[in-house]
């Protein structure tokens, strides 16, 4: 994936540019209200940037929205399910809307159910699901068309330790298969444990864009948390 992005007048995000690469997990780190969600929403095309462009596998999301989205799996911040449909039907619905034929969708759902450990509730109605089960179904829904790029907006919100570990394994598996994974978070430990690269956002700007190791080296801080605070502190000072 080759994503470059530049935004103008939007208050939330200003002249933001970064690239997330295939076979890597990129973390978008920032405090609440830093512009992470806005940035991701422009990336999957539900918000239009005032200026600048976002590309997925070199395809402009504004120019060829449908084509670009076919390469993209999205787990939005609000990942609600249809309560009256079963987990399988929820996933199948999105598969159909991606234009996948019935047979392929079925085998794909069986595979995802196994990988994500959803077999026990795959045919139950989503109404009674726990937050962890919900996220699993929403993730399966985002992956049903086997996209090359996956965008997740704060996926660990509301998950318990066990579910977070499952999610982490899932993202590492996607990375191992050469997928490009981009996720946002405000939890530094999470990013430090999982990401190859980290993009730190503050006040709608990129404050740092580097590997986790090089950020630590640059700032000379021992933990990413301290590095994060330092990076943030510098710009505060400039402002």
């Amino acid at each position, binding site marked *: 994936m080759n994503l470059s992005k530049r935004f103008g007048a939007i208050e939330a995000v200003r002249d933001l540019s970064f690239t997330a690469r295939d076979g890597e997990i990129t973390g978008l780190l920032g405090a609440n209200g830093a512009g992470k969600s806005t940035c991701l929403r422009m990336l999957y095309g*539900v918000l*239009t940037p005032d200026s600048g462009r976002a590309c997925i596998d070199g395809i402009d999301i504004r120019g060829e929205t449908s084509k*670009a*989205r076919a390469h993209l799996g999205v*787990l939005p911040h609000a990942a609600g*399910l249809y309560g009256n449909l079963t987990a399988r039907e929820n996933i199948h619905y999105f598969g*159909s*809307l991606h*234009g996948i034929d019935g047979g392929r969708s079925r085998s794909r759902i069986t595979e995802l159910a196994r990988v994500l450990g959803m077999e026990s509730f795959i045919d139950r109605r989503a109404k009674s699901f726990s937050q962890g089960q919900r996220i699993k179904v929403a993730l399966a*829904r985002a992956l049903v068309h086997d996209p090359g790029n996956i965008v997740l907006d704060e996926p660990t919100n509301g998950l318990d330790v066990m579910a977070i570990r499952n999610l982490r394994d899932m993202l590492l598996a996607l990375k191992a298969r050469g997928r490009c994974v981009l996720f946002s978070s405000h939890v530094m430990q999470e990013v430090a444990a999982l990401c190859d690269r980290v993009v730190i956002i503050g006040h709608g700007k990129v404050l740092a864009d580097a590997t986790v190791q090089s950020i630590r080296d640059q700032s000379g801080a021992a933990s990413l948390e301290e590095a994060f605070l330092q990076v943030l502190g510098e710009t505060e000072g400039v402002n």
Partner: protein
Amino acid sequence: MRALFTVFAKEFMENLRDRRTLMSALLFGPLFGPLLFGLMVSRMLNQNVALSDEPLKLTISGSEYAPGLTRYLEAQGVKLTKANLSENEAQAAVRGGAVPIVLIIPKEYGPRFSAATPAPVLLVADSADSQTRKSADRARIILGGYASSIAQLRLQVRGVNPLLAVPVAVNDVDVATPTGRAVVVLGFMTYFVLFAVLMGGLYLAIDSTAGERERGSLEALLSLPVARSSLVGGKILATCAYMCISLALSLTAFVCVFHFVPLERLGMSANLNTGTALIFFAICLPFVPLGAALMTFVASFTRSYREAQTYLTTVLLVPTLPIAFASIYSLKTRSSLMFIPSLSQHLLMTSVLKDEAVAALDVWVSAAASLAVALVLMVLTARHWRRETMLG
């Protein structure tokens, strides 16, 4: 197109499992009208029978002061109950509902009557109660009859032709045909049919828009490689399907009600049989996409289920406006009115019920006008769904 049918199939299926949608689409919406209508007509029937057959009941106080009047009332078949009440007691009794009407004859009645000056009587009744108002009118007519017969006698005794006191003779000629009279009642019926159409799609329209947002499934849906017009189209189509089911059920229920309610006894004739019900279905069919698009459009602007419910219950009243307007100004079927949706359906259905000839052109204009408005609303809805603010 494939995506549109996927959305349609999913919305249709999902709501088939939702008790609230089913209750409103298949039970409350279609059956409310026919049941209320049946009750209303049978109540009217009972009232009419009561009025013409039952003797007038009157509580009379001070009958000993007016023996002539009392005899006259009894001769007219009025059932008198004698009591001794003061004016205040009588008012309290009527207000409390203990007795419907009280006739008070005061002490000065006798001397005044003998002196041939107006002799006072008091008729105590509650005019806010439609039932006793009718009885009071009957009592007034009988009392008037007594007064004029006494007046005629007095004139005769004085050697004056009593006809001099009747300068104008009024004869009522009622031209209302049995069907024409039925139309007042049937105006309600056509509204109930349109109400059933809207009610059938109410919850689906909410669930597929505000519900999608409240559940948090909207953003994922909007990030799919599917044209927004396909999403909107599928949702409106599913709403249409529920509205059609509701319409069919409502008409079936009406046919059953008409079968059991003897309208002829009210001096009305309106035959709603299977044939006319099918014609009604065809007349209302173009109103279905209009209703579905209108409800989806309005619900698309709301943030929550509750908010959508508030706005859409107002939308339920929209078809009443032209119908109410039509009955206030007693509009007759006219080609120019066929451009107004809901009013045109009302007028066409009324014409069919009255067994009047319906011009084919009117039917086409009515359908085309409704479909045109539906199309405009669909385009507006799709445009709204393309906007960023849709995310909320």
